[in-house]
């Protein structure tokens, strides 16, 4: 296509890309410095002093959710596979209304810093905290591995720096945010990144539409002209109805068990603010998933699948390549820096969630039996942050070169099978018991991991066997159902009078906010 001249500067650290990236790091470190002076208590470290407004929290939630996987991944999927990418995009939004209808407000009223606060509210603290922390940490770990490996690869593709350096860079910068600025810094980094991402993708969308006389129809016609009508029709992504519904369940209800998302509801003053923040978040995320397919189709039409595929087989570079084609090196630099910022911010949020499970749930409530003074709690929270951050970098290196795309699916599947059933049952069901909660969480976690290992994703794609013992690629429909059943059956086998008595007191707090933190 471009006889002799390189088709793209992607993969070389251009002045524009490095400049925008350094600017972002400088701004976010300034935010961290500002936040550090306001981060003394646990309330500030874990929950930003509950001072975040609904609009700010809506942006931060959107920031946590719009990861590099959804920005680069879905644009790439639409560019390479056409309409199938759009099907995937819808699945990423539909969890948000469910989160609001089922858990957001009770979660805010009942908890303090983690979702385990809610599950353990009227049950026996130690066993429930341990089980919830296991479910929470597994979810966060798998999500983090996927993000770290993805970030190493993406940064290598975009800036040309070696994988190990990229992973270490991400780990170190995000550790600065979380360690010194806690939730205040993490939230503002997330807001900054969300605004940059929304602006960047909006500009990209406008440029695509401008190239097609502001008519999506002309864009689709160009895509169909080059790749056939099939690009605009459902293809091979969804074939088995059960598998498709199972994936849908994991995407939708997994959101209701993601610790780093749930934690954000504690940063707003009350349940009303929590509710409004979901409306903002759903608006931003919905807008994002409506316009991202335009970017994907635009990349297919203007950059071409061949070049996108040559740079990265998965198509992840579709959006950056499109940015370069339409806006030159400067705009590519901006989009590359935004993608980098996205990864940093998401990993920071995950680290804070992982650290809170380790320190607030395990250390304070299990090891110390709930008796620890503020200074000790903040100190332990910071140590847990370091532990989790180092672990994230090491896991990123360990899984170098591995296909980890399925790990995001695994994280969502564990979230919806281990964390979500116990969370929902503890809110709505008087007879739910400690034994039921522990059994439900552990069954959900173990069953999900086991079924993924036995699924075609691992058995056929990674181990290259012919047939997998378990036919579904996503186990949620089985593992979540079993987890609910186990939680209900085990609870019905014995009674826990204290838990039932507390359920009444809990009602005033759940629905009226009386005594909420």
């Amino acid at each position, binding site marked *: 296509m471009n006889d002799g001249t390189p088709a793209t500067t992607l993969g070389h650290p251009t002045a524009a890309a490095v400049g925008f990236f350094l600017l972002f790091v400088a701004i976010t470190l300034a935010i961290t410095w500002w936040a550090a002076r306001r981060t003394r208590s646990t309330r500030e470290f874990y929950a930003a002093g509950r001072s975040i407004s609904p609009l700010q929290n809506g942006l931060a939630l959107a920031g946590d959710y719009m990861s590099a996987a959804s920005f680069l991944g879905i644009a790439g999927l639409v560019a390479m596979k056409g309409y199938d990418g759009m099907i995937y995009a819808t*699945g990423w*939004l539909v969890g948000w209304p469910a989160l609001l209808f*089922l858990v957001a407000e009770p979660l805010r009223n009942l908890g303090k810093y983690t979702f385990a606060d809610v599950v353990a509210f009227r049950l026996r603290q130690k066993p429930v905290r341990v089980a919830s922390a296991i479910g929470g940490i597994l979810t966060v770990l798998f999500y983090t591995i996927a993000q770290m490996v993805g970030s190493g690869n993406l940064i290598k593709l975009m800036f040309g720096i070696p994988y190990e350096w990229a992973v270490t860079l991400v780990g170190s910068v995000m550790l600065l945010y979380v360690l010194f600025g806690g939730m205040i810094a993490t939230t503002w980094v997330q807001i900054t990144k969300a605004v940059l991402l929304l602006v960047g993708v909006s500009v990209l969308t406008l440029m695509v539409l401008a190239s097609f006389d502001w008519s999506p*129809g002309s864009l689709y016609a160009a895509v169909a002209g080059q790749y056939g*009508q099939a690009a605009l029709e*459902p293809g091979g992504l969804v074939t088995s109805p059960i598998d498709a519904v199972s994936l849908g369940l994991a995407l939708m209800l997994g959101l209701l068990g993601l610790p780093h998302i749930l934690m954000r509801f504690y940063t707003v003053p009350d349940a009303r603010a929590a509710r409004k923040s979901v409306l903002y978040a*759903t608006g931003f995320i*919905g807008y994002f998933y*409506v316009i991202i397919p335009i970017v994907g189709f635009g990349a297919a039409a203007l950059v071409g699948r061949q070049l996108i595929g040559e740079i990265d087989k998965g198509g992840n570079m579709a959006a950056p390549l499109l940015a370069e084609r339409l806006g030159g090196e400067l705009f590519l630099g901006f989009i590359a820096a935004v993608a980098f910022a996205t990864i940093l911010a998401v990993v920071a949020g995950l680290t804070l969630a992982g650290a809170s499970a380790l320190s607030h749930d395990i250390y304070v409530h299990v090891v110390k039996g709930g008796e620890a003074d503020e200074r000790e709690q903040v100190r332990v929270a910071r140590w847990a942050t370091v532990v989790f951050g180092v672990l994230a970098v090491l896991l990123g290196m360990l899984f170098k070169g591995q296909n980890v795309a399925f790990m995001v699916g695994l994280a969502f599947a564990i979230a919806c099978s281990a964390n979500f059933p116990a969370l929902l049952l503890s809110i709505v069901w008087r007879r739910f018991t400690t034994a039921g909660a522990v059994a439900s969480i552990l069954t959900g976690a173990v069953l999900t991991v086991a079924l993924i290992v036995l699924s075609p994703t691992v058995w056929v794609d990674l181990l290259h066997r012919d047939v997998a013992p378990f036919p579904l690629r996503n186990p949620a429909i089985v593992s979540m159902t079993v987890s609910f059943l186990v939680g209900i059956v085990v609870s019905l086998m014995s009674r826990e009078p204290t838990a039932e008595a507390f359920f009444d007191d809990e009602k005033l707090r759940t629905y009226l906010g009386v005594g909420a933190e």
Partner: protein
Amino acid sequence: MKTAHEMLQSPALRRLVARRWAISLTLTALLFLAYYGFILLVALDKDRLATKVGTVTTLGIPVAVGVIVIAWALTAIYVSWANRVYDPAVDRLREELEK
């Protein structure tokens, strides 16, 4: 003025909680209908979604965007109900409650 115990027994609180769940579960059901309906349509009747509604534009494109818009609209319906009805009711009940 009511004690916490009296409040828990009060029909007003029970009605409010029941109403809250009736509305959120109805909206959840509509959400499931929209999303899983779409997924099953993709799985079972691809030809219908491949029908052209423009020169090349397929029915699937507006339907996918529609699912996102419906999801947001359901969220907006809940928030507007809660702001108009639920919050004032909560305020009234909290005023009746002994400190």
